[in-house]
C-alpha cells in the first residue's frame, strides 16, 4: 500500500505545490520581518527612552507568545473586531489564511530578528562610527552606510538561523488551512488514507530545503568575510579602534 503512493505523480506534484507555498511564506515573512526587526533593533540601541521601551515591550511580547497562539489569535480572534473588518487591511491580510500567516510569522520573526540585528549592531566598533562622523556624515548616513552594513554582515549566521526557523515554523500554517508543504502532504494523505507516506516525503523536502539555506548562509558569510576589501577594512577598523582606545586612556 505504501509503495505505489510513494512513487505516484499525485503525491510529488502536490508536494511541489506545497513547497512553493512554503518558500513564498518564508520569503515574504522574512522580508517584512527583516524591515521591522531592523527598525526595532535601531530603536532599542539608538532610540530614546520611549522608542527603546516600545521595542523592548514588542520583543518581550512576541518572543513570549507561542506562534500557534498568535496565529489562532489573528486568524480566529481578529475578525471579531468590526473596525478591522471595515479597514483596507481586511482585504489585504485578514481575509485570507495565507495573508494572516504572513502577518503572524512577520510579527513573531521580527522580534527574534531584532535581537539578532541588535547583537550585530553592538559588534560595530565605536571608532568606525566616529570615523563616519569625522568625514562629515550625518547620523542617518552613519547608520545606513556604516553601522547597518557592518552589523548585518556580522549577524549573517543568526539571520540564516532565523530563516531556517521560519521554514520550520511555516509548517504551522497548515493548521489554519494553508496548503503548504505539510498541508499538502496531509491533504494527499487524507485522500489516499495513508497518513504516513506523504509526511515522510515532506520531511525529506524540509531537510533538503534547510540544507540549501544553510549552505547559502555559509557561502554568503564566506563571500562577505574573506575578500581583499574586507581584509583591508578589517585592518583599518583595527587601527581606528586602537586609536579610539588610546584616546579613551
Amino acid at each position, binding site marked *: 500500500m505504501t509503495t505505489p503512493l510513494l512513487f505516484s505523480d499525485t503525491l510529488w506534484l502536490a508536494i511541489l505545490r506545497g513547497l512553493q507555498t512554503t518558500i513564498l511564506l518564508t520569503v515574504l515573512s522574512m522580508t517584512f520581518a527583516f524591515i521591522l526587526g531592523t527598525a526595532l533593533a535601531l530603536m532599542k540601541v539608538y532610540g530614546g527612552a520611549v522608542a527603546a521601551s516600545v521595542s523592548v515591550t514588542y520583543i518581550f511580547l512576541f518572543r513570549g507568545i*507561542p506562534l500557534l497562539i498568535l496565529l489562532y489569535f489573528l486568524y480566529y*480572534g481578529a475578525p*471579531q473586531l468590526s473596525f478591522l473588518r471595515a479597514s483596507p487591511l481586511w482585504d489585504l491580510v485578514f481575509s485570507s489564511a495565507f495573508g494572516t500567516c504572513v502577518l503572524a510569522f512577520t510579527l513573531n520573526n521580527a522580534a527574534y530578528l531584532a535581537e539578532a540585528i541588535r547583537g550585530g549592531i553592538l559588534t560595530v566598533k565605536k571608532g568606525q562610527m566616529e570615523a563616519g562622523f569625522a568625514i562629515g556624515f550625518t547620523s542617518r548616513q552613519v547608520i545606513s552606510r556604516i553601522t547597518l552594513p557592518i552589523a548585518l554582515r556580522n549577524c549573517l549566521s543568526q539571520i540564516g538561523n532565523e530563516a531556517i526557523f521560519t521554514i520550520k515554523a511555516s509548517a504551522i500554517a497548515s*493548521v489554519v488551512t494553508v496548503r503548504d508543504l505539510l498541508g499538502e502532504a*496531509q491533504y494527499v494523505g487524507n485522500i489516499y488514507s495513508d497518513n504516513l507516506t506523504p509526511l515522510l516525503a515532506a520531511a525529506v523536502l*524540509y*531537510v533538503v530545503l534547510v540544507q540549501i539555506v544553510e549552505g547559502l548562509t555559509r557561502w554568503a558569510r564566506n563571500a562577505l568575510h574573506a575578500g581583499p576589501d574586507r581584509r583591508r577594512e578589517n585592518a583599518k577598523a583595527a587601527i581606528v579602534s586602537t586609536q579610539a582606545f588610546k584616546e579613551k586612556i
Partner: protein
Amino acid sequence: MDATLPFLPYIVGGLAVTILTSVTTFACAVAIGLAATLWVTTGHPAANRIVRVYVTIFRSLPELLCIFIVYFGCEIALRKAAASFGFRPVSISPFLAVTVAIGVQFGAYCAEIFSDAHRSLNPGLFEAAHALGLSRRKVMTRVTIPLTLQAAIPGLGNLFLVMLKISALASVIGLEEVTRRAKIVAGSTREPFASYAIAAACFLVVTAGAAVLQTRLERTFRTTQGA
C-alpha cells in the same frame, strides 16, 4: 469577554498540562542529548557520524511534522501489531506522542549544546581525574557529566524557553493544554479574541517566570564555578 470570564480558571488550569509536558519533554531531550554527547566522547568510530546525521535531520524537521509522524506512525504500528497479535487496537496518547516526538527532536539541539559545553571544558580536568586513579566510569559520572551539565546551563535554559512555547503544538493532536482549552472555549463562547488573549497572557507569564528562574540559576552556578 463576559462569556469567556467564567472559563478563565479552565484555560489557566491548562498551564499545569503545558508545564508538565514541557518538563517531561525537556528531561527526555536532555537524556538523549547527554547520551549522544557521551557516546561521541568515548571516541567510537561510528558515533560521531551517526550523531551528526541525527542532529542534521532533526534540526531541519518542523516540530509539527515530527509530532504527526510519531503520532500517525505509532497509530499504524499499533494497529498492525494489534491485528497480528489479535488484541484490541489501542491508540497512543497524545501526551506520549508529543513527549517522544519533541524529546527526540530537541535531543538534537541538546546534543549540540552539550558537545559545545564539553568542548569548552579544560581537558586537563579529565586528565587530572585519570591521574587520581578514578576508573573510566567514575571519571564519567563524577567529572564529565557534572561539569558538562554545569557548562551547558545557559544553553539549556534558552532551550527550555523554546520548548515551553513549542508545547503549544501538542494541542493540534488533542492534548488538552492551554492552547487546546482556549480553542474549546473560543468555539463555545464565540469569543476567540478574549480566549486566545488569555492563552497568550498565560504563556507570557510562564515564559517570563522561567526566564527569571534561568537568570537566577545561571548566577548561582557561575559563583560556584568561580569559587
